[in-house]
């Protein structure tokens, strides 16, 4: 016990000493922290420069979907591969799926008490509206499709915890629907990416050719849908009760 306190204190003193040396004494010469030339280039050229514009006063969105559009497009594909990897590990055949559904129907209807459920309802409404505003205003205010999708994934997790997965499935939010919505999000992104080639004879992802902010708006909405329903799909697949999954899988192994 005494030794632990001694170790923690010596670490604290070492941290303070190094911090003091680097900042106040400026041993490494980085205390000023000026703007780097690359950042300055993006800040000064993103919105309006010699008639060219990225249609986004928010420089981060301009970088993510305009300057570095291909990076973000392939990030979307990495996300797709991760979701597909998880789904292919959790896959069930048609017979197994029907068996799981029959077993799930016999599970007792469990959910948390009234206080938790009411609070969750309120919080989920707030999260959904905030995430929608993050996604739809992504090119004007801080935010974008990725962040909004992550926020929505949290909302669905809250619903899972308070109401159980079966309530959601009874309301019509099954795996089939979420996968369809995920595909819709990816389709919106791909359509926006290819649209300049087909409509205006430009290059792939040259979204400046589309009228106004249409390109950025569509990409943000597509990313929002894709991320939200991608996460929701895996949550639904993971939400099958442990003993049912074991029962079905162990039988397959034998």
């Amino acid at each position, binding site marked *: 016990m005494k030794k632990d306190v001694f170790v923690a204190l010596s670490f604290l003193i070492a*941290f*303070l000493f*190094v*911090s*003091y040396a*680097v*900042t*106040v004494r400026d041993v490494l010469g980085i*205390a*000023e*922290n000026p*703007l*780097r030339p*690359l*950042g*300055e280039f*993006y*800040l*000064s050229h*993103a*919105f309006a420069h010699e008639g060219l514009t990225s249609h986004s*006063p*928010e*420089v*981060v969105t301009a*970088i*993510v979907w305009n300057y*570095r559009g291909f*990076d*973000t497009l392939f*990030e979307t594909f*990495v*996300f797709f591969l*991760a*979701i597909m*990897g*998880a789904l292919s*590990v*959790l896959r069930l055949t048609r017979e197994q799926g029907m068996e799981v559904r029959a077993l799930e129907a016999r599970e007792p209807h469990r959910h948390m008490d009234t206080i938790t459920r009411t609070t969750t309802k309120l919080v989920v409404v707030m999260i959904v509206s905030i995430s929608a505003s993050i996604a739809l205003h992504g090119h*004007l*205010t*801080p935010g*974008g499709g*990725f*962040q909004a*999708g*992550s926020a929505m*994934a949290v909302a669905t997790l809250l619903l899972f915890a308070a109401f159980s997965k079966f309530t959601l499935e009874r309301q019509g939010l099954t795996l089939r629907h979420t996968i369809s919505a995920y595909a819709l999000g990816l389709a919106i992104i791909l359509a926006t990416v290819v649209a300049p080639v087909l409509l205006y004879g430009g290059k792939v992802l040259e979204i400046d050719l589309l009228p106004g902010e249409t390109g950025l708006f569509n990409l943000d909405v597509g990313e929002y849908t894709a*991320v939200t329903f*991608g*996460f929701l799909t*895996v949550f639904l697949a*993971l939400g099958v009760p*442990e003993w049912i*999954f*074991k029962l079905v*899988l*162990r039988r397959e*192994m034998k």
Partner: protein
Amino acid sequence: MIAAFLIFYITITLFAMIFLGIYGVATRSNLIKKIIMLNVMGDAINMLFILIGYRLVYPVFPPIYEKHITFEEFLRRAVDPVPQALVLTAVVIGMAMNILLTTYAIQFYRLHGTVDARDMAEIMGGERE
């Protein structure tokens, strides 16, 4: 001066967190603990990126154009947008990676009843350390 001091204090702490994450991933044999330490490391790296882009001026602006700010003022006060754009995608990809790893760990547990790396090696036909 105090702000610079604090920022560098945070930087050193984040570096310590990164090394802690590497230590945890290397030494723990429980897969879930490995995943948690990987998250600690990833979050520290993301935070470090954001910190690199931060400016020590007051007041500091987000990198968004506004009408009532002159351009010179904007350049003097806005934070660096490049690290933010990097972290934005890294966070979501980190979450996707988490989902993949967690799914594999859960599935392995369902099939074989263990998430210990040494037991896993034995089950897969290797030798136990």
